[in-house]
């Protein structure tokens, strides 16, 4: 007699797998940390996504504020300010996009907020082959403390593939 494992793993049995959604929509906040990554995020946002929101980090904004505020740190792609805490609160996952050598100061603020709210952080740094080692190292040092998953990719196409794989 065929064992249970042999029967269950057969091609014939695959027909009886339940064909129903097995997950709910995830809220993934994709945040561009520097100017170059803003352009990438703008291009990404034109595609169709299940539950991704595309934002930019405005690293200079709080410096202009007299009192510390969470409202100046993020903006949507139309330039409207977004409250960092609100955005993190409603996120299942935060993906920070950066380019090697860019100004990534905002990573620490976003990372700290995610840490407080127990939101998983992924940082993706684009580093074309021409990037200088020193520039990449500086950028990594800014991201590393705040990313539970850090990806160094050579091409922009990877970001779209990653977001699709994560059902963003």
């Amino acid at each position, binding site marked *: 007699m*065929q*064992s*249970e*494992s*042999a029967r*269950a*793993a*057969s*091609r014939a*049995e*695959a027909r009886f*797998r339940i064909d129903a959604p*097995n*997950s709910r929509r995830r809220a993934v906040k994709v945040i561009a940390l520097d100017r170059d990554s803003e352009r990438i995020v703008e291009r990404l946002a034109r595609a169709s996504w299940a539950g991704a929101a595309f934002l930019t980090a405005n690293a200079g904004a709080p410096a202009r504020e007299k009192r510390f505020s969470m409202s100046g740190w993020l903006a949507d792609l139309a330039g409207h300010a977004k409250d960092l805490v609100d955005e993190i609160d409603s996120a299942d*996952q935060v*993906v920070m996009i950066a380019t090697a050598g860019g100004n990534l100061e905002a990573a620490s603020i976003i990372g700290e907020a995610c840490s407080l709210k127990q939101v*998983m*952080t*992924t940082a993706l740094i684009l580093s074309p082959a021409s990037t200088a*080692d020193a520039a990449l*190292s500086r950028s*990594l*040092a800014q991201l*590393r403390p705040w*990313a*539970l*998953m*850090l*990806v*160094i*990719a*050579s*091409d922009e*196409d*990877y970001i779209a*593939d*990653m977001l*699709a*794989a*994560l*059902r963003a």
Partner: protein
Amino acid sequence: MLKQEQNDRLTQTGPGTPGGRLFRSYWIPALLAEELPENDCPPVRVKLLSERLIAFRDSQGRLGLMDEFCAHRGVSLWFGRNEEGGLRCPYHGWKYDHTGQCIEVPSEPAESGFCAKIKLKSYPLIERGGVLWTYMGPPEKQPPLPEWEFALVPAAQRFMSKRIQECNWLQAMEGGIDSSHVSFLHRGELNTDPLFRGARGNQYNLRDARPVFEVVESAGGLHIGVRRDAENGNYYWRITQWVMPSFTMIPPRGNHAIHGHFWIPIDDDNCWTWSYDYHPTRALTEEELAAMRAGKGVHVKYVPGTFRPLANKDNDYLIDRAAQKAGRSYSGVEGIAMQDASLQESMGPIVDRTKENLVSTDNGIIMARHRLLRAIKALEDKDAVPPGVDLVHQRVRSAAVILPADRPFMEAAREAMTVREGTAHASV
């Protein structure tokens, strides 16, 4: 998650498929050298990339790998007589040399030259490092012979095994680059398996179940770094190597040998899992070899006379529910290799990746798929040589190191991730 069309491109490797073309760009392991131990030994059936082949070692020691079936009436040449410089079909005596060229058709006058018109499809087969390797792509694109470190060290420093895995190659390979499962599925083995136990690094693994990951593209594939807290603010890093299309090297533990795998498609529903262990600077000890032969570490016990694991789906992998309940084994299946294989086979012949829910710690898997798909497209569009063919891409090592918190592993462990002849691997 993948689209069905992407899943098909990655998982189908038969002749004429995009994924098959990718695999046909590389030298791939076909047989253990010991399967053809002497001249004129019995031929061996081989199925690779959905092609049925026959391998033999002729009277002069020349290795042949060709279409399994006689061109005359389609008889399997597994029944053939390996004699006097060729493999002869026992049905009507047609004989083939190691290149598949027919050299005798007894029913036809030799002067007719008929046999010169008959040739079976064949592929080169070469021996290196205890493995017989083949290249199944266009002859004019044959790459240089493989230079994986395990294949170049003296024989006494190496142990090779292979086993049939009854699922598609990709879901098996993805297990090899999924570092986050070790703290769960294999946690019982780190302190008990003779090929792992005793390493200081094991304790970092067991103490920290929420590691932090870094995935970095390399020229040939990926470096997958996983860091856990160590003493004095330092990090314990384990760096896995993946080289396209299906070579992985697991980070070492203590002074144990380094090990890893190749996953080679037999057909779309089955693959060979090749497992190697080697030490760059010393011979393996008798105790280590005995443990490897006994199925410890990444190796398995076999159904006698086969390469099928003794624990397999037909006996429910000999799962021991009492051991699982008592905490002696996390999964209840014995041995690291079958703990992985049992779960991967349970997904079905080809897992439906349109249904999966990946998370960010799966970025190694996501990136590997991305690179494979990119290489397949570049082959189709530009006939580009894929990563992993270049011998420099093969000169990699996995590593386990302790680094200061502010040192990126890519910089601080650069040397440790490269083959340095005569130097031991970096391990904790």
